[in-house]
């Protein structure tokens, strides 16, 4: 396997030595560019108490291009679709090489606290979130209980 750039080694070491509260990111044993991620649902959000699995992959030209991140755990959120794809500007056109794995995952955790139905990826979810927020939040809590709380 090709050697890893120093930057990736350094980021990985820091993630292990100084983990971000509520976030764990562990590189795969077979591919050091592939991370198994777990994000805990933020307090006072419909996702509280849930453990959400994600996958994160660092492309070859990282950090010049953004990591590829996807939810594996099903989640009811207007900016995350049923395939787990995330609508977040810093993963697209607002990416900067000064951002890191940890800042990306913190942004995703913040997105759970602050859903943005005006920039939707899951249209049906976003629609309900706008029309009937309390029902949308009930659904989100139910999905969290059903999909993100089993072991």
């Amino acid at each position, binding site marked *: 396997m090709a050697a890893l750039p120093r*930057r990736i080694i350094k980021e990985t070491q820091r993630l292990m030595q100084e983990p971000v509260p509520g976030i764990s990111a562990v590189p795969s044993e077979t591919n050091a560019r592939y991370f198994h991620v777990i994000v805990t649902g933020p307090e006072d959000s419909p996702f509280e108490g849930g453990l959400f699995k994600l996958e994160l992959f660092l492309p070859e030209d990282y950090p010049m291009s953004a990591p590829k991140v996807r939810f594996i755990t099903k989640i009811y959120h207007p900016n995350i679709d049923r395939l787990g794809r995330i609508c977040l500007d810093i993963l697209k056109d607002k990416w900067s090489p000064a951002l890191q794995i940890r800042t990306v995952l913190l942004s995703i955790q913040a997105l759970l606290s602050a859903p943005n139905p005006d920039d939707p990826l899951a249209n049906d979810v976003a629609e309900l979130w706008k029309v009937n927020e309390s029902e949308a939040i009930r659904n989100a809590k139910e999905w969290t209980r059903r999909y993100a709380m089993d072991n």
Partner: protein
Amino acid sequence: MFICIPSSTKRWYIDCAVCLQKCYHPTRLPCGHVFCFLCVKGVAIQSKKCAMCRAIIPADYLDNPVLLEKIVPEQFNMDEGQDYQWYYEGRNGWWKYDERSNSELESAFNGGDPECTLLLAGALYSIDFQSMTQVRCTDQTRRRKVKRDTPLFPAKGVAGIKTRPAEIKSENETVPVISENIVDNILVLVEDVSEAGVLEPIINNDDDVIDISEQIRTIDVNDGES
């Protein structure tokens, strides 16, 4: 042009936000943010925005980058045991790899690895020690020769930063095309301009984006000489 700056403003000794290592050949963008020269080169070519504040990097920035340190020949190969320097072939000559890449190449080579992967200016390159070639991982046509030689071998400069010795070598006369891409109105900020042994850095950023044109030029020169 020289501007003296007090040592208290040496903020670039913090790590570069792009490579997360000590700023190497610290280079300041118009917005004031400082990165390694090679990291600036990477973002100037790819996103064209400052990695910290997203300010647009002028299209001609790499023609006149603001280097915050002098290019001193002695700063290379100062490590004890660093008896060898790695070079990559450029137009009419060889470039030294920067110190950091050089030590990575040395440790991979001495460790018996068949190849070494380096992140240079935002792109991943693989250096094969058997064929002694460097190939861009995402574009196999971007290929150039490399070599391991004494640090004293006359080079064009370091990692695309041209260092011009005080005495102009006569070899320049036989390779007139070399002057084509030299930009000499570079702004250099140094603290002590009186120090001897300083080489004036001249940026030649075209050198990394030449492939076929380089071969053609090389052939032309060779034909002219023979």
